[in-house]
């Protein structure tokens, strides 16, 4: 390849890189959660139900949103929640958190505060001791996203 055409190609590449950077200032589009769900369930079906989340319907700021997660389960040695996984499809890293409860856990419930990069539908999937998977979803409107300047960098 001639030096000139090489430079030209490089300039085009740089150009696209700049455009991407400009886009990075905006909210990210939702990501496909399928690979994350697949890694968790290994193809097992996920049924809707038993998992509930509580968050404000509208958050002015995405940096610290009160978040409550609850899974309906008797929490006995025979029938309990093994783990719960939270996914935010518009976050640069959709895996927000995963929780496991021990034998002393009387209920599968946890409260925390999350960062959300924009309005989205948050998904939670619970893995039960019988091998079944249950999920819950919750929509939230975030008017100012958590900082993610470099998310697409």
């Amino acid at each position: 390849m001639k030096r000139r055409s090489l430079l030209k190609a490089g300039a085009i590449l740089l150009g696209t890189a700049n455009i991407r950077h400009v886009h990075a200032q905006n909210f990210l589009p939702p990501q496909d959660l399928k690979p994350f769900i697949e890694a968790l369930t290994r193809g097992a079906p996920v049924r809707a139900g038993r998992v509930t989340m509580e968050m404000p319907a509208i958050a002015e700021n995405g940096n610290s949103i009160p978040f409550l997660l609850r899974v309906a389960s008797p929490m006995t040695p025979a029938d309990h929640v093994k783990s719960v996984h939270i996914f935010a499809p518009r976050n640069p890293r959709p895996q927000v958190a995963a929780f496991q409860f021990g034998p002393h856990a009387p209920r599968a419930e946890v409260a925390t505060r999350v960062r959300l990069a924009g309005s989205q539908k948050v998904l939670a999937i619970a893995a039960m001791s019988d091998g079944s998977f249950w999920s819950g979803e919750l929509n939230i409107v975030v008017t100012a996203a958590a900082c993610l300047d470099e998310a697409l960098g």
Partner: protein
Amino acid sequence: MSSGLARLRVPESAQPGEIVEVRLLIQHDMETGFRRDMQGRAVPMNVITEVRARYGDQDVFRAELGSGISANPYLAFSIRAVKTGEIRVEWIDTAGVRGSVSAVLNVT
């Protein structure tokens, strides 16, 4: 009950079998890695990746966290009071820095 970096709250006492709430607050920036400092240098990601809670000699709660959890992470979970014992929470961040905090739950 608390170190400078974290606070662990449990009720002063509980009856056997009672469900008690354990509340944990850790001072940590939970740096996402998507931010730049005043000189324009990228601030490397550093978040608490794992939190483990033990009650006596039992694991009672475990959390895997990431950049989707707010700075100064707050976690609240419940345990069933069995007997008087220490509740100890340990964590580690991306930089490998470990921390811990503990509190005693009196069961009478």
